[in-house]
């Protein structure tokens, strides 16, 4: 099996595992991390597709552009998600004097 098919398979496995984990876990942070795993998985699939397509083993420029954008967007969402998680699970403004955790 060529390297491309291997990466393709790897990416798919990563994406599926990440999705299942993300959809079923209760804890928010774990879910956020699983989201990143799915992100990486799908980007690997894209790279594999890109590589397969390129004539002289250079990946297809369009797909690599897609991968970079995807990466940036996933990072943005992860940052924003982290802020939200901290707010949700952070101390409530009303009982700032060390009340029980949220």
């Amino acid at each position, binding site marked *: 099996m060529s390297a491309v098919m291997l990466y393709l398979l790897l990416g798919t496995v990563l994406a599926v595992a990440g*999705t299942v984990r993300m959809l079923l876990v209760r804890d928010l942070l774990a879910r956020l991390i699983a989201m990143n795993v799915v*992100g990486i998985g*799908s980007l690997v699939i894209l790279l594999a*597709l890109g590589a*397969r397509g390129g004539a002289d083993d250079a990946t297809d420029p*369009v*797909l690599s552009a*897609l991968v970079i954008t995807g990466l940036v967007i996933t990072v*943005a969402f992860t940052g924003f998600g982290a802020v*939200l998680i901290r707010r949700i699970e952070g101390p409530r403004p009303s009982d700032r004097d060390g009340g029980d955790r949220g």
Partner: protein
Amino acid sequence: MTAAELSLGAVVLAPLLAAALAAALPHTARRALGVGIAALVLLLTGLLAVQTVAGEVTELALGGYPAPLGIHLRADGLSVLFLGMTALVGAVVTVFAAASRHTHQAFWTLWLGCWAGLNAVFVSGDLFNTYVGLELVGLTAVALVALGGRGSWAPALRYLFIAVLGSLLLLVGVGLIVSVTGTLDVVQAAEVLAGRPDAAPAALLALTLITVGLCMKLALLPMHAWLVPAHASAPSAVSPLLSGLVIKAALFVLLRCWLWLTDSSGALSALAPLAWGLGAFGAAAVLIGSVMALRQSALKPLAAYSTVAQVGYWFVAFPLLLEEDAAEGAFIGIVALALGHGIAKAGLFLGAGYLKEAYGTDEIEQLRGAGRQHPYAVMGMSLGLVGLIGLPISLGFTGKWNIATAAVAAEHWWILVLLAAGTLLSAGYAVRALAPLLLQESPTPGEARISRNYRSVPGLCVIGLGALTLVTGFGGVLIAEALEVGAPW
């Protein structure tokens, strides 16, 4: 560059620039900027609409780079209609937000960014820009929901997760198409796909992934759990934007992919099982959404469930897109329903938000007799509900009429039954929401916090949207003609 092409570019970039600018301005200046930009976008969309209705598609390659790599903006009938609806609803909501005391400072930057994203999605000629636009809309929408205070953070986070999952699926789908066709531009990809029947399975897989991803963003039935808390807990100026505009972007992309990407020859018929699956989910969404809306005791959740139900209507018509003679009627029906829903639901949510600000709650029991103090708001909401039920002189009616006629032409009798049931159920929850407000005496005749004068601007905005629902009711023929421009068949 003609005026139309200029406006095509400006319609995306102007709000984006304004969003950046608003971040820097003091609070009062942001309101003025917001309203100004709203007026500008309205003007630009008007220009574009005149051009498109005249019959030709406006194309603009940003920076002169050709299609595969360069950003190619295209405004055909479908996009102009959605642009127009977004401009109208966006302008009214902007005025409402500017006039209302409860608007959060950050609202302006996020909303203008979201508007830029929406316009980008509607006019983008290629899949990559569509993806970027969708992501911008997703991000700003999640942030807008989070403005709703403590109660809205958890729903915002949930919305975030679903949005990301959806966009990743979309990304993979787009990647697949690019790898198969070598180009991102929708029109070129369509030609390539038409030429290579062997690429059909890959295209089919890509399309399925894209469809599932977008259904998550659209909150089609099984994946709708995030929509109700998100739209209900969002602040009063944000809910109309979410229900009215944001989910329309996902629908727009779905229609683009289904109708433009795959020509109606072999590939589309292979989509039959997927279409029938969507139809089934749509039917379930209509029934369960309406039944749940009937059970709600507060206005905003009721409106949110109504959105779930209305989304169902669009997907009920999907199997018709495959039928030869019914496709066009169904397409017009879906677009009319989507536009009608945008305006009507925005009116309903705006009214609900206004009353929530006035009375501090949107529990229907507490709002009894609100009609006496706020006739405009309640009247606007009732007109909105008329549009949602799909009674005459509203785009809802036009949409249902077209879908019904297409269904008869294609002998899908079950759609007729479903439409009838949906109309009756929606009338049910409309009465449930409206009767106490309009007809009953208020239990505590205490003064509502917001000034009772009838000339209050937010009240006028609500009645404005209501009247819009009615006026656009006459637009049936206009929509049909507009959709002819740049139609896939």
